[in-house]
């Protein structure tokens, strides 16, 4: 059985993993604790993003080069609503997700007929336009001034001001997203997506409503991106257009290429290895080479495509 199917059914697999992530905040790490926990929280955010991006290129086979657009959209929606109305995260987050779905569908609907590379270009252009609007429409987003002073997440009226609380919160969202994508993967919907990925025309011929299923994939992917963004804004407590550059789209793509496109466990593993690695490299590399990290990511993508195109944890069992 494939690893992805065992994620929620094989006790020997999920119990130790779950125990490890649940216990992490309580491992004594002395004063380095907050730093390790921050990297861990960031890693979980990117795991959510990788799972979300994975839905489109992984499940339906269409390359999305603009995922950062939904991440930014979610972050700004949540950040601005919080700053203006002081609403709870449990109200702001669903609104951000809905906004993500709205734009995801709006972007997706006209692109249904496009071939793979044109789709990639449209997603890229669309997300750059979103970020350009965020940067320029000062009345709405404060543009390059950024939005400082966003409140921390809250739960039942209490503010979650401890780092471990934010960690558990994103862990909760991660498990939720994971549960959804694992369930969908083995459902009728998932099988329809795989059919589209393998051969769109053949899928259409056997009666799969390609347009509907594609739209659902776009909506789900955008929703997950916006969810990650909404959490990120409340956790980071500051949003700025520079946080949502094109490079972020590439980084998230890199995570799923590394782990294996279409593979849920691969997306998790990709984020688990690469996000902490960027921090380790920051410390290990001398200052003059700190940019070399990006170079390594470029090289990694090229090498993966050349020698291991299915990633570390491929969808098909070898």
């Amino acid at each position, binding site marked *: 059985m494939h690893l992805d199917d065992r994620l929620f059914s094989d006790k020997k697999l999920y119990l130790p993993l779950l125990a490890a992530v649940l216990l992490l905040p309580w491992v004594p790490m002395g004063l380095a604790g907050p730093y390790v926990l921050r990297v861990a929280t960031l890693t979980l955010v990117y795991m959510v993003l990788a799972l979300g991006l994975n839905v489109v290129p992984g499940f339906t086979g269409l390359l999305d080069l603009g995922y950062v657009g939904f991440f930014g959209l979610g972050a700004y929606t949540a950040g601005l609503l919080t700053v203006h109305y002081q609403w709870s995260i449990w109200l702001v987050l669903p609104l951000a997700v809905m906004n993500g779905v709205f734009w995801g569908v709006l972007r997706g609907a006209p692109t249904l007929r496009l071939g793979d590379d044109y789709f990639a270009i449209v997603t890229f252009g669309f997300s750059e336009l979103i970020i350009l609007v965020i940067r320029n429409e000062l009345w709405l987003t404060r543009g390059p001034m950024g939005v400082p002073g966003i409140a921390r997440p809250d739960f039942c009226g209490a503010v979650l001001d401890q780092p471990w609380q934010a960690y558990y919160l994103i862990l909760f969202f991660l498990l939720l997203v994971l549960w959804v994508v694992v369930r969908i993967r083995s459902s009728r919907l998932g099988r329809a997506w795989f059919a589209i990925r393998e051969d769109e025309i053949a899928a259409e011929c056997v009666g799969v409503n390609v347009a509907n299923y594609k739209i659902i994939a776009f909506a789900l992917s955008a929703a997950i991106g916006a969810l990650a963004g909404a959490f990120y804004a409340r956790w980071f407590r500051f949003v700025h257009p520079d946080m949502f550059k094109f490079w972020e789209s590439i980084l998230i793509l890199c995570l799923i290429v590394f782990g294996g496109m279409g593979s849920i466990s691969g997306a998790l593993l990709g984020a688990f*290895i690469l996000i902490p690695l960027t921090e380790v490299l920051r410390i290990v590399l001398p200052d003059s080479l700190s940019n070399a990290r990006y170079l390594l990511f470029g090289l990694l993508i090229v090498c993966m495509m050349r020698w291991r195109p299915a990633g570390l944890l491929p969808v098909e069992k070898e």
Partner: protein
Amino acid sequence: MKRLLRLIGVIFFLTSFVAVSASFAETIKIAVASPFTGPLASFGEGVKNGALLKAEEINSNGGINGKKIEIILGDELCDPKEAAAVATRFASDPEVAIVVGHLCSSATLAALPIYKEAGLPAITPASTNPEIGKSSPYYFRNVYKDDFQGDFLANYAEKVRKFKKIAIFYEVNDYAMGLKEAFVRQAKNIGLRVIGAESYMAETTDFKAQLTKFKMMRPDAIFIPGYAPQATLLISQARSLGMKCAFFGADGLDDEIMLKNPDADGLFVTTPFLVDRGGAMVKEFVARYRNKFSIEPNWFAANTYDAVGLAAAAIAAVGNDREKIRAYLAGISSPEKAFKGITGATYFDVNGDCLKAAFVKLIKNGQWVSAEEQLQ
């Protein structure tokens, strides 16, 4: 599966090892954060040099209470996400007593909640966004705010240079837009006409379309709130369109690369620091700086030099307890208690902001020279 778990274990081990190993030594650490690589590296280089020079000076005089100062550098590329990561690393190192940085306001604002949470005091030598002081009791700055500089430039343009019509070409970023707003407001107050305002993005290289528009309006001068890399292109393109008007800007244009551009002759800028003004302290700083790095010190170097000096003075007085350092800095609240450095006297208001003098310098024959007429 076992292989996967082993891999997970190794990575856990590595991250915690790297994080923990960073924290045992017998020195006092002052953390300095700035972009040291990337497009703004020349500003960051001033920050780095200024900090290293001051630390060397203190250590050669026996350190602080017998302990040596160590400068640890954090390169954040002026990127908010990187800045937050660097800030967390500083905050979780117990030997870091105080942070000097960040340079870009967006990076400072991203790092600010982290320092506030960790109770780690910080002094920015360069971020001029007005939000910073208000947002955290742990953030101080020994540089003026955008609004002061904008007011000052409007006054200087009108009173000293007698300009009547100004066009503004600003970059879309917090620094430049704060400057522009303050300038426009003050210009209105004193009857200086702003006949047009255009904006550009950091990645813009072609300014001709907007310059052509300005050319038809015949301004006396164009004000460029922004940074030197774009401004130097902008000025050259204006000259190639045959524009003869004057150009001026704020401290973001105070950079060596402007000197390589022969078209920039006559450009004047505000700056918090002039190499040829001030007493013996300034002369000594400039001489030592030239000697050590064989370049001219810029204002980032001077402000950072003073910020590290301020940090060292605080540590010398109250030890390396973060809370006490904050209290000490907050206590420097009047001209009498001010810290006297090469950029003049520094003391903080309730927000941790300070009032500093601004100077004007201009490019003459490829060299920066102080303007003969300064505005007090």
